């Protein structure tokens, strides 16, 4: 094949297709979130525009486009404009690297250090938030930006550390190889149960979602970093947030849930099986992938409907005192088990799965609702 076609045109086309589909999903997610929240919260959600309110997906962007774009009088204009745009670029770029289905058709650019590159790109999203918060010339925005900076820095560490165990098991930074490894053995979710939990909590914090939505904490900081943003600039922040959510859910799926495969120990729908089936097989892989990703997106929304918000010091406590030590311990244990497994020739995954299940079981047993809810005491005679 013409190298120009191979290295530039095809990847670009694939990226654009992925980009458009992903943006469609992001827009749809907004509707799904509002409807689902409405369902949980005993209300309706948007149901006026189109059937079941589906045209809300179009109505919202149109509204954002037509609204007046207000720039505060004393804002740093350039930084203020850069704020919403900066977080968009890395989150869009990441879609080049994400394999949405069996390779080579469904990945725009297969890079052998994809995991590192994804981590590096997503972590730059915070610059836009800090910049936007600072440039708005508003104390609430500034506090939101600063909270966001501290939160991102703190949770980037457990976020990265929790992946190390997966990398040790699969022995590669290539997302396709990680997926293939899981299809040949077992989903990393089981041997890396604690890592998966840390990863999920950290990615919720990374995307500023409830219960970690401190940077925008609407009841405390009005709107946090995006208080002063209106119209399309505000929409860009939202777009970046939802895109980042989607990227993180994709990562979660690829790293811990076997990506587009549906196999265990090499049996089932592995990458080879899907590739043998041709285009329908590829499509099936993409479908499996999307279902897994959407599950996590729904968990995000479920979280939002359930949890109160952390306080800032509590958030830092959780990050530094619990998540990071736990992630480090996970690395040590995984490393030891993998090395022993290689030298003594046993399946490290099985040992790790049993250990993880035991720990989680013990924790759940301890967390079971035992203590009666504290009631106020009563006095009859006053």
């Amino acid at each position, binding site marked *: 094949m013409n190298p120009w076609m191979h290295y530039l045109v095809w990847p670009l086309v694939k990226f654009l297709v992925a980009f458009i589909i992903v943006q469609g999903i992001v827009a749809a997610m907004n509707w799904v979130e509002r409807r689902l929240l409405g369902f949980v919260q005993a209300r309706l959600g948007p149901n006026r525009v189109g059937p079941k309110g589906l045209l809300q997906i179009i109505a919202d962007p149109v509204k954002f486009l037509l609204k007046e774009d207000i720039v505060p009088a004393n804002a740093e204009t350039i930084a203020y404009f850069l704020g919403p745009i900066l977080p968009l670029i890395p989150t869009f770029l990441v879609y080049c690297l994400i394999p949405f289905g069996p390779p080579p058709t469904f990945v725009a650019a297969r890079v052998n250090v994809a995991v590192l590159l994804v981590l590096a790109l997503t972590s730059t999203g915070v610059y836009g938030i800090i910049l936007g918060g600072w440039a708005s010339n508003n104390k609430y925005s500034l506090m939101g930006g600063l909270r966001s900076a501290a939160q991102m820095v703190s949770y980037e560490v457990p976020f990265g550390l929790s992946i190390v165990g997966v990398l040790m098991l699969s022995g590669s930074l290539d997302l396709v190889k990680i997926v293939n490894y899981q299809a040949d053995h077992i989903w990393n979710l089981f041997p890396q149960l604690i890592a998966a939990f840390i990863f999920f909590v950290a990615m919720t914090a990374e995307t500023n979602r*409830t219960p970690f939505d401190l940077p925008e904490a609407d009841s405390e900081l009005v709107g946090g970093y995006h208080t002063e943003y209106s119209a399309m600039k505000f929409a860009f922040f939202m777009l970046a947030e939802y895109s980042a959510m989607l990227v993180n859910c994709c990562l979660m799926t690829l790293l811990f849930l076997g990506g587009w495969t549906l196999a265990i120990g090499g049996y089932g729908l592995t990458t080879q099986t899907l590739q043998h089936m041709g285009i329908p097989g590829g499509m099936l892989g993409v479908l499996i992938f999307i279902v897994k990703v959407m599950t996590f997106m729904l968990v995000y929304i479920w979280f939002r409907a359930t949890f109160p918000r952390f306080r800032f010091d509590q958030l830092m406590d959780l990050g530094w005192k619990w998540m990071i030590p736990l992630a480090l311990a996970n690395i040590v244990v995984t490393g030891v088990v993998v090395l022993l497994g290689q030298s003594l020739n046993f399946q490290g995954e099985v040992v790790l799965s049993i250990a993880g299940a035991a720990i989680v079981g013990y924790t759940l047993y301890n967390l079971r609702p035992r203590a009666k809810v504290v009631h106020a005491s009563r006095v009859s005679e006053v």
Partner: protein
Amino acid sequence: MSTLTRYSAIPYTGPAPTNREPYVPTDTQKMDARGAEIASRIGAEQETGQDLPTLVVRRERIVETLRALKNDLTFTMPLDLWAVDYPRRRQRFDVMYQLYSLQNNERVRLKVPVADGEPIPSSLPVYKGFDWFEREVWDLYGVRFDGHPNLRRILTHEAFQGHALRKDYDPAQRWLCTEKDVAALVPKVDPRFERVDTDFERVTLNLGPSHPATHGTLRIVVILDGEKIIGAEQEIGYLHRCFEKSCETHTYQQAIPFTDRLNYMSAIINNVGYCMTVEKLLGVEAPERAQHVRLILSEFMRIADHLVCIGTNLVDMGALTNFWYLFQPREEIYGLIEACCGARLLPSYLRIGGLAVDVPPNFLENAQRLVNMLPKYIDDVEKLVSRNKIFHDRVVGVAPISAEDAIDFGFTGPCLRACGIPFDVRKSNPYLGYETYDWDVPIAEGGDTYARYLVRMEEMRQSLRILQQAIDRGLPSGPVIIDNPYVALPPKEKVYNEMESLIYHFKLIMHGIQPPVGETYFQVEGGNGELGFYIVSDGTKNPYKVRCRPPCFAIYQAFGQMITGQTIPDAIAALGSLNIIAGELDR
């Protein structure tokens, strides 16, 4: 033709109006005896013939008298401080202090007559809780309090001239408040958090008057060191609607809609408080049926008030779902009130002497349905948050206030009970027959945000207990408004067909209710605590003076102290748990 039964007989054969004769409270002898006892103990003059033991104190002796009352006679709680203007007298102002003794469950009233321009020594060294009350009297009457550290206007703005509640103030005047008139509000930094190093910058942050967590128009200026609040001051008055001044130009009946707008979360309770005060002044009592409906609606309103308070408090902490879980039953409660009178939030359903109209025939069934469904919603929220670790971390130990401080600030209601003090007006001074019901006063330990949450949750359950008993007893039959044409309008059918009724109707519309000359105070347990009304009648159709004792006012003045040393999220959580209703705070 059910309305015809409202009147048992026309023409009226009861007592004629006694509006030119002095008002004699029912228990005046007992009060006078106790008043004489107190007066002799502390060496003050006594004013007899009042509904409370009343002492007349010279202004020079007020601090000493208050100290004696507090230390020797256990009057530890400052309930209210207000003034009345009698421009024809040489000492034209009566500054009134009302104190409460938790130990003996009794009240005492002090009157300090002062002339225009004469200062009164500030009572702050004795009672912290009179801080804002003294500012209010200065603001609205121009009575200066010597030694008050912060004697600024509180309900009106900086550009306001004159003192609005003086009888000779012309209410047609308009004062324009521009930005340059507003004095920069800079809170004092708490010395505990002063830093010696100079290389850090403090941030002064304005929370409000328009802020998502202030639920109304409150303004809190905080000084921040990082996210920690090291100094805070509250500013109020954004929702001041001249409630007390307006009452003076309206008839007694016309003031009822104004009371709705005090604590608009539990409007019926305000109606009950006001109407019962006027009824006390008139020496009449609403019929049993009306009283029963008043009690049922009061308790429903209390539940609605707590639902809103807990719901919004949880929203402020990010627990969004609970808001709808709690607002759903609230809508149903408003549906019940709508079925009674057609209005929901601000019903103005009560009349002096009873109710505006009878309740619908299925009132009790609807009430029973509500009582059956409410526990589910309360339990749902309990399950969602009460065992939630994040919620616990957010509320336990946040913005605590000690029991001593709470009493000294004049806290009442759930906020006081959260400090472990079982004070409830429904128990201490029962009205509407609360003493005949079997229920408990919930208290909690700690006085923090969590304790306030627990108390409100339990109070809703106790209200449901009262409601269940009230529904089981059934509605007494009979009229819903008293058979007294000097107080209540005759039914329309009679007005159109009978001469006497037409005259009574005309007289009541044109000349209003004319209570006997005198003054009285009556208190009910509002959603936030003791809601008191003090009314002075000069025998005319307009009240000479209506004073409302808003429970929020006393509670909110302690807020700055409570949040100093806490973070912004804590301040927000605490603000929600205090249930500050701007309508009641600013009147």
